[in-house]
């Protein structure tokens, strides 16, 4: 018997999932700031030693990208949409297409040796995508972190404060930004964003 309990936490498609913002309604507005929730993605926290070769090779073979060792970066698999993000020297966030988290976890566990952990956290966080000319302004109103393009190029990912909550900010491409927020704070973040985005005539799709 494995020393770690792993199980598929996703039911079949007959079970209706509810995102953390299920109770909130969409806001219709302009195109200067468009926020869209991407719920139900697979989120795994991977922890281990950065010098563990099996860790690196496992991530490469299972997720198809190099394990990012450079602080504050993440790597996107353009084909699958999966990504691996550096969170700390021994911690990474894997965001996977919906429903793949169990398989990925199993595959990683088979290939990684030594001291590591993998934890499914998909129920506990959700992802917002932001685009439009006013994203910089919205983020600047909300975060103490410098989101100017000189400091925040594509491929950067930073965990920081977001208003009075916390968030991970990611920049997958020139046009888009991503916010990973915690489930229990999601309603607060929604209210904050809609309030702070009011002057930009925001659109928020949940």
């Amino acid at each position, binding site marked *: 018997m494995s020393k770690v309990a792993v199980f598929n936490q996703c039911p079949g498609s007959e079970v209706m999932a509810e995102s953390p913002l299920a109770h909130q309604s969409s806001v219709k507005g302009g195109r200067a700031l468009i926020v869209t929730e991407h719920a139900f993605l697979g989120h795994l926290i991977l922890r281990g030693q950065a010098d563990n070769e099996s860790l690196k090779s496992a991530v490469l073979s299972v997720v198809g990208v190099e394990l990012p060792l450079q602080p504050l970066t993440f790597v996107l698999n353009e084909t699958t949409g999966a990504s691996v993000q550096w969170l700390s020297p021994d911690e990474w966030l894997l965001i996977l297409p919906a429903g793949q988290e169990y398989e990925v976890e199993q595959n990683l566990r088979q290939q990684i040796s030594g001291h590591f952990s993998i934890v499914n*956290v998909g129920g506990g966080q959700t992802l917002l995508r932001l685009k439009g000319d006013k994203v910089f302004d919205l983020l600047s109103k909300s975060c103490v972190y410098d989101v100017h393009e000189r400091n925040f190029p594509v491929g950067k990912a930073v965990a920081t404060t977001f208003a009075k909550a916390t968030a991970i900010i990611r920049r997958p491409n020139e046009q888009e930004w991503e916010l990973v927020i915690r489930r229990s704070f999601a309603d607060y973040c929604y209210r904050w964003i809609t309030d702070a985005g009011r002057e930009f005539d925001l659109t928020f799709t949940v």
Partner: protein
Amino acid sequence: MSQVNRLGLGGCIDRTQTYTFTFNGNQYTGFKGDTLASALLANGVSIVNRSFKYSRPRGIVAAGAEEPNAIMQLGATEAAQVPNIRATQQALYSGLAARSTNGWPNVENDAMGLVGKLGGPMMGPGFYYKTFMAPASMWMTYEKLIRKAAGLGRSPKEKDPDQYDHYHRHCDVLVIGAGPAGLSAALAAGRSGARVILCDEQEQMGGHLLDTRDQLNGQAANLWVTQVLAELASMPEVLLLPRTTANGLHDHNFATLHERRTEHLADTAPDANQVRSRMHHVRAHQVILATGAHERPLVYANNDVPGNMICGAVSTYIRRYAVIPGQRLVVTTTNDDGYRAALDWTEAGREVVAIVDARPNPEGDCVKEARKKGIRIITGSAVFEAKGTKRVTGARVSGVDPATFTLTGTKEDLACDTIASSGGFSPVVHLSAHTGTRPIWRDDIIGFIPGNVKGLTPVGAVKGVYALDRILAEGAEAGSKAALASGFSVSGIELPSVTKQLESKPIALFQVPHEKPTMRAPKQFVDLQNDVTAAGIELATREGFESIEHVKRYTALGFGTDQGKLGNINGMAIAARLLNQTIPETGTTVFRPNYTGITFGAIAGRHCRDLFDPERYTALHAWHLQRGAKFEDVGQWKRPWYFPVGNETMHDAVQRECRAVREKVGILDASTLGKIDIQGKDAREFIGRVYTNKWAQLGVDKCRYGLMCKDDGMVMDDGVTTCLGDNHFLMTTTTGGAAAILEWLELWHQTEWPELEVYFTSVTDHWATMTLSGPKARDLLSEITDIDLSKDTFKFMECRQGQVAGVPARVYRISFTGELTYEINVQANYAMHVWKALFAHEHTYGLTPYGTETMHVLRAEKGFIIVGQDTDGSVTPEDLGMQWCVGYDKPFSWIGQRALSRPDTRREDRKQLVGLKPVDPKVVLQEGAQIVLDPTQSIPMKMVGHVTSSYFSPTLGHGFALALLVSGSKRMGEKVYMPMADGKVIEAEVVSPIFLDPKGVRQNV
């Protein structure tokens, strides 16, 4: 009234846009581009306020942030009221409604003025410390009267209709002040491609260049301003923030900038989506301080009568606003700048009676120009007294010897209605001092300049450089250096040509001596807003207040809304003279944020109302709302407190919920419990070190309750931890402790035991937890699960994995109610599905949702503690009678163990957890009631403990409580007493804290 003082030409105002406004109920007109002050002056309004202590009439003195008198109440409606607006910094807008803050029945005729006149001599500094002491009982009455007379404007009585926000910014170079120094600095830095922020507190950028007589490139200086601003605006990395005051400069170059976004347009934001003002939180790599200097007035007798102004303000009103604030001007000055006011005045076509210059032989270019224009110049002299009460009617002039502080020569009275004075300049060093650096006194410029602050470069007038060509050059150099220091390559800028002006040196004069001694002369004001006089400062030093901080505090010098921008240096200089010290010996004042006041709303930003603090919701929150739950705040979480049905009271609802759990089945949303996933081969060892009890033998799929202490031996958290695999545990924490406990585990791992192979990951939000509790729990759950729930297969304190309502779930058979309980955990996105599936069987099993209150009653019946309610940071596991949960012989000295053997923790008479049963079964003890053994003793009574939890139990049929009681474990069966506020004494019997099912039969069925 028409705009009697408006000049026909000139000024940066838009004469095509006329605004109507009111002041003290009278209607006036002004133009777009006016400030409230310039508009009032244009309309010939002299008296704008009454003074704070003596109720003397006061007029406008300055044209900017240093104005002490023109303090207004603004707002046409109640909700839009703003107290203490400086008229000199408030842009005029259509419909603006302003009132004076003092003066009854009005500022022209103020009844309190009489009190000021008669009582004035008794109202020296600190007079209230010397009286109002007898009889002692009368102080509160005296105080009411004192308070009534105090204060300036008033707070609105309604909520603010406007919104505010924050903006976090980062830049390479922050330039504060957009005068000549700031503009050239910003331009030099901006051209390098650096990220530059240029802010300026005024409506228009340009600072002194907007009203200077100097020309740039042979043209009016403001043309150069327009050109530079246009170039800056075209640079993508340069941000221009006009109407933005840098009000604080904090550690590591963190600046707070307050941007007024609609305050210049209307009482409230014209568009509901606009923010009224915005705080920019700026982290700058380099800061260039280009804040300029404030002109100092001279201190002479009756220098507060309306019509007394500072010279620079006179020029500003004439040149920038095309307003001339009087008919006949006398200038009294110690420097060349005073002459500019006279020149501007005479060019505007009104009479300059004389320029009175304290210097014996002034020879600058502007002196020559004044002579050329035929203005009378009286040298070696000063105005020592102004005549008039509601408006200046004349100036008394005498020869003066600053060195001996005496008047010399003959005296002469000049008829005039305006006296403009200039005693030199005080650099605006404020921001440089906010992180504790003291400004440095410079005798040559007769002022303080900024001390050394890392990453801060003062430039221009703020460091005592007043020649325009040098200001521009230094600005450009500082801008280039700052960009260079931030890693950019620079090429410099071409500077505009400036006609060199020959200046003669200023002379140091602060207070002008009077023919009478200071204590007997008419009042010579130093701080106009707080009615601090030179005599007041003299009295303070006579009474032993020799430190400048004492003088300030005793006289209130500099404590007004202007924070002494005009008066502080004069006050220091006067104190220095009286104490026979130099100014630097006397000490500098400490400048602290804010530079100018900022509304609370702007500082609070968007973090108010429902955004004051995050509300955290579980995945089932919407269901609770729909079911009509009342909520309890637990940390940031909103937890259902109870679920009233119909018109039920809380008591009724809780009794019903309790019965449902004890008799049928209830369900609690326990998702807020902290959950930490722990993996690694040393997970078990680690858990054993942080919990008080033993974990070595816990098998897979088994659960165990654990207590956590700090290393001082005091209980800090508790919860159930489950072994999911040999190297895998799931720890639960209290709702409030979740984040702190995760950090606690990381702390120990990262700092003390990095060799242990273990990782912690928060899964609090990931798992939704539904606690199904009651005798029917098994029957109900078996309807929708494939897990074998039979008693002997799935035992108490075990965990199983399976499907619940088609959703993969971990089910823990643990109990906080004492009943048969299954805690169903599913990935939170599926929680609502499972919850609803359970409620599909609501009526079959009598399933009842219950809240935290019922949970508390049920757990207390079982004697289960709530950390933070039954403990308070001074309670050990032993005090709780939980020796069963303490592994005294564990090989590792777990956190808290050593502290338990200290003398005080070994004491036998510590407070211990007990149960209390009120003798009257109907009584519910008050939580927080103090316990005594002898209720007949007199006060102070010897207290021996207090009630921590208390409820009425429908199951027991009586009230019951948990309490911490001195030597409680030895008092079983004894009676204790609780003397209550209403005089009643409640009697209770000390019993075991476990009131129900001590053998645990019910949870083991």
